[in-house]
């Protein structure tokens, strides 16, 4: 998607630090919403990135998880829109969700949260550490991918071969190597008076990259 989630380098959001510095969340529903999202789709990223830009930018963080969970639940046929709305009416008049204990579901959740599932090593990476690569330019308004706009068309170098995994944005069974690519801030943002040069690393799948001649 080419959505509002792609925030690197966007201005107008003000300062970062807030009064609630240490807090992870404010209200008890927030982590519940995130937990529901993780239960109804294999990955929530496409569902969150698919929110239209005004909605994305005016919905708080865990609100976006909730919207993603609702949409994925309905789109994946897990609950109907009608069932959801019926429950919304019941909750609105004071009812609470049924309290259900289910050892199997609880154990599965705990297992998923605590058991490592590392990605595989890249078997045949096309690029080697040190290779000069350029990030492809794309236009994919409707398909999930993970290429931040701020590095499109920018040349960097392979800093690490991370492994191989399902590539974001393609058939979810297609496995592909991905890399950490190192960029110079000057190549990304141009010459700057306000910040000394720095380094930016972005992790990118192989098919997002093309060989570039070393500068």
């Amino acid at each position, binding site marked *: 998607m080419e959505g509002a989630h792609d*925030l*690197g*380098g966007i201005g107008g959001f003000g*300062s*970062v630090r*807030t009064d609630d510095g*240490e*807090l*992870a969340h404010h*209200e008890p*529903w927030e*982590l*519940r*919403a995130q*937990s*529901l999202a*993780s*239960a109804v789709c294999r990955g929530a*990223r496409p569902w969150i*990135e698919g929110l239209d830009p005004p909605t994305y930018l005016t919905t708080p*963080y865990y609100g976006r998880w*909730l919207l993603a969970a*609702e949409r994925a639940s309905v789109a994946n046929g897990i*609950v109907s829109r009608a*069932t*959801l709305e019926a*429950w*919304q009416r019941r*909750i*609105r008049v004071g009812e*609470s*969700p*049924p*309290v259900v*204990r*289910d*050892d*199997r579901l*609880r154990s*599965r*959740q*705990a297992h998923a*949260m*605590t*058991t490592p599932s*590392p*990605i595989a090593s890249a078997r045949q990476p096309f690029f080697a550490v040190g290779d000069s690569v350029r990030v492809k330019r794309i236009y994919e308004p409707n398909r999930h991918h*993970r290429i*931040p706009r*701020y590095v499109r068309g920018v040349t960097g170098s392979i800093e690490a071969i*991370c492994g191989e995994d399902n590539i974001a944005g393609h058939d979810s069974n297609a496995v592909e190597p*991905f890399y950490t690519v190192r960029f110079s801030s000057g190549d*990304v*943002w141009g010459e700057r008076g*306000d*910040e*000394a040069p720095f380094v*930016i690393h972005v*992790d*990118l799948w192989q098919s997002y990259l093309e060989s570039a001649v070393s500068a």
Partner: protein
Amino acid sequence: MSGHDHPDDDHDQDHGHSHYELPKSRRARSEFELRTLALEAALTEKGIVSTDSIDAFIEIIEQRMGPHLGAKVVAKSWVDPEYKARLLADANAAMAELGIAGAEGDNMRVVENTPLVHNLVVCTLCSCYPWPLLGAPPIWYKSFAYRARAVAEPRAVLREWETELDPEVEVRVWDSSAEVRYLVLPERPSGSEEMSEDDLATLVSRDSMIGVAKAISPTSRN
């Protein structure tokens, strides 16, 4: 969390009391809260989730995971050069030595601060974060401002934490855009030479492992 240790039917409904206690006297349910509870209700009915599977998610991310584990890893690497070498070479194996593992930390990489290098972790596209080592991310990490500015003006962001770097220090930003999660290994602060590993862990703030701050100076605390 209660109710996890006594035997139950596989999917045991109990409408008699609510596990999810609302502080009703304090505030009304917000629209997001209402909709979250409605979705929870619908998914519980379908047997997709249960009250205690959601509680387990929250318990694990809030209680078991957290910056105390990141601090443990960092403190150990400060006192044990061989552990540090293993941590930088294969973070997951080194974490496993201390029994640390889990979702959103399956593919960890630890990046080391030095007198000439300062690292900063962000996720511009969402808010990827190393849960097993740091728990749930702080609100500012998930803010649009941090996601927008960390990759474009990192030194300006660091100044909001009064983290000033010498001009010759190279700032390295890590945008967690794929499946790797990053943790910063902060520099061991001067004045901490005599401290035990457990005491050292108290100097390792969450913010120093994201990279917006340095480790806490023991002299500044006295």
